[in-house]
């Protein structure tokens, strides 16, 4: 069986250059495990396909925080990575909260999702403070929630990804869930929701990477960023047929 979607590479030369958006990757040195680069790559390429230019910036612990950032993106890390970035994250907390309140689109995955919250209480009782952009709290659990996830969102449709975390995250009244889990565990093992939505922030436990198979979320971040910067977003013609097929096949896979 051969699919019809073989000519997979869209041709997007002579893009209209509708402007440049600056994407800031948070802590790629210490928090980029499990394919988080995929999310950055998807934003960069989709911007090109939509006719915009992308500038990729990095902020690592100890760096000066850059100005004029249009999209922030941060990923997962091992426990050791979370310790390394802790001090830097706290010293930039007020600035990051201001950016969030101002409507800057942000994607926070896994480890950074947890640290965007109020705190992370580890299994042995240590409390790691978060930066309280999201009204969530996370408690270290004894079991790891691992496997394929499908979660339904009114805003983005079905979300496909892969979770791998031992933190159990509970949402406060200040945020709403990103989606309702139909396969997998999501935020915690007692409730059926996954991720968090607040302002222009999308936060999730899902790797996969998240954005390639969920282009609706990628385009949400891009649309909000372009609208904030240029007053409007003019989408280009992007061929998402492979993403659609990848989603359909992912849905059939065991947990």
């Amino acid at each position: 069986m051969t699919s019809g979607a073989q000519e997979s590479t869209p041709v997007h030369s002579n893009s209209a250059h509708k402007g440049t958006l600056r994407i800031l990757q948070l802590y790629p040195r210490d928090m980029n495990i499990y394919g988080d680069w995929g999310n950055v790559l998807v934003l960069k390429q989709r911007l090109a396909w939509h006719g915009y230019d992308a500038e990729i910036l990095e902020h690592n612990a100890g760096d000066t925080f850059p100005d004029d950032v249009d999209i922030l993106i941060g990923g997962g890390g091992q426990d050791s990575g979370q310790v390394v970035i802790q001090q830097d994250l706290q010293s930039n907390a007020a600035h990051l909260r201001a950016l969030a309140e101002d409507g800057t689109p942000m994607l926070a995955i896994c480890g950074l999702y947890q640290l965007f919250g109020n705190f992370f209480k580890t299994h042995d009782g240590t409390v790691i403070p978060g930066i309280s952009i999201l009204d969530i709290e996370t408690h270290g659990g004894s079991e790891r929630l691992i496997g394929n996830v499908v979660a339904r969102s009114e805003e983005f449709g079905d979300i496909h990804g892969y979770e791998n975390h031992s933190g159990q995250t509970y949402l406060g009244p200040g945020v709403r869930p990103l989606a309702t889990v139909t396969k997998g565990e999501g935020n915690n093992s007692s409730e059926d929701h996954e991720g968090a939505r607040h302002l222009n922030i999308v936060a999730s436990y899902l790797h996969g990477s998240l954005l390639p198979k969920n282009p609706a979320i990628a385009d949400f971040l891009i649309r909000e960023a372009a609208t904030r910067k240029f007053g409007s977003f003019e989408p280009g013609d992007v061929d998402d047929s492979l993403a659609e097929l990848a989603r359909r096949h992912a849905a059939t896979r065991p947990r």
Partner: protein
Amino acid sequence: MPKTLANRDKLDIMSVLSSVSVPLGKTVRALSRLRGGGSAFPGLVVERIDPGFMARALRNLPHGVIVVSGTNGKTTTTKMVVELLEGQGLNVFTNRTGSNFTRGVAAALLGDVDWRGRLKADVAVLELDEAHAVHFVNLVPPTHCLLLNVLRDQLDRFGEIDKTTRLLEQIAVKTTGTVVLNREDPRVASIASSVRSASVAYFGLDESLRSTFPSDDDLRGATGTAPASSLPADVVLESVNSNTATFSMDGETSTIELSLRGVYNIFNAAAALAMARIILGGNAKRAEMLSSLAAVEPAFGRGESLVVDGQPLELVLVKNPSGFRLGLKSFDAAGYATMIAINDNYADGRDMSWLWDVDFDSLRNDGVDMVSGVRAYDMALRLQYDDVAARDIDPDTGSALRTFISRAKGQPKRIFCTYTAMLAIRRDLSKITDVKVVS
């Protein structure tokens, strides 16, 4: 009752146990061979009824017990160590069948011990899966271990790579003679500080090669390469040009042409040389060792070359981002028809995130002829984002292989595949060409 007496009773019980468990295990082994069944089951039987069997069979080997572990390249490295030692006249016991779990070792032992449970060998060289090695070293403390690397692999099994490091660390802690470490892998090199009862030796790369071997911390190359290691290495890989490699040992360099292909295999040859030299000590004959190394053929699926329609067909096993990246770097795409087959079965790892940590730029010029496997569309999507054309997509590896071979007639071919995709493809290839049977 005095202690000595108790011990003697214990010994008697041991020999009684052996006299029961070994014949029973051997019988089960023979029966499961007849059935064409799995190789580990008899190991399970003997492990259950006689847990001390392995320790007794492996103790008192004149050159000890070597454990080889790490995320990438265990099988080929183990094969190299074995052939290096055999080349110097040693009688080597190894778990050849690729069953790298404790009960796989037990099963292999059952085939080689006599009916009283005694192994006739000078040394044992054992490949162990990092998760199961801990169980093994608790039963049988190794005299030597060779730890290759800690890379993102099957994170859904181990959770975190720091945890994998701790697993390897436990092998090193239990080792009584020498721990041989990859000084270029910061996680592996850090294990040295936990070693108490053994001495530590290293193998490494010349500075000019370090950028070729990104660690997982600088996989994307954006954050630069790891700082040059100042640790002293017994064997250093100085340079690689296709399959010609230069190693330096004791300040002397030697250049040889290897049957093995792939930069990562050749780096593991430095690891194997370091290990073999420690075992052989002053008896190591350099020229003979290098010719043994030159003759080592790749292990199953590790860059093996078959012939289809008079053209070479290379199978390259890929199972984590570093391995895939090095595979792409080691094998020039120009002139080759390329197929990629990605499965997400348990043995492959279910999480597809790793594909996003591999750059596929090197395939952009020629494109990919066929994308296959259960996760064919994830792979094709990955290629789309690197602007690499995928000319055909077919999740079914059988029909994909047929299409690929017929369309690429007259061209050399290369298939990158995950573990279970490789098993399926080898099975199909064995119908049309000679494929070595792996028991």
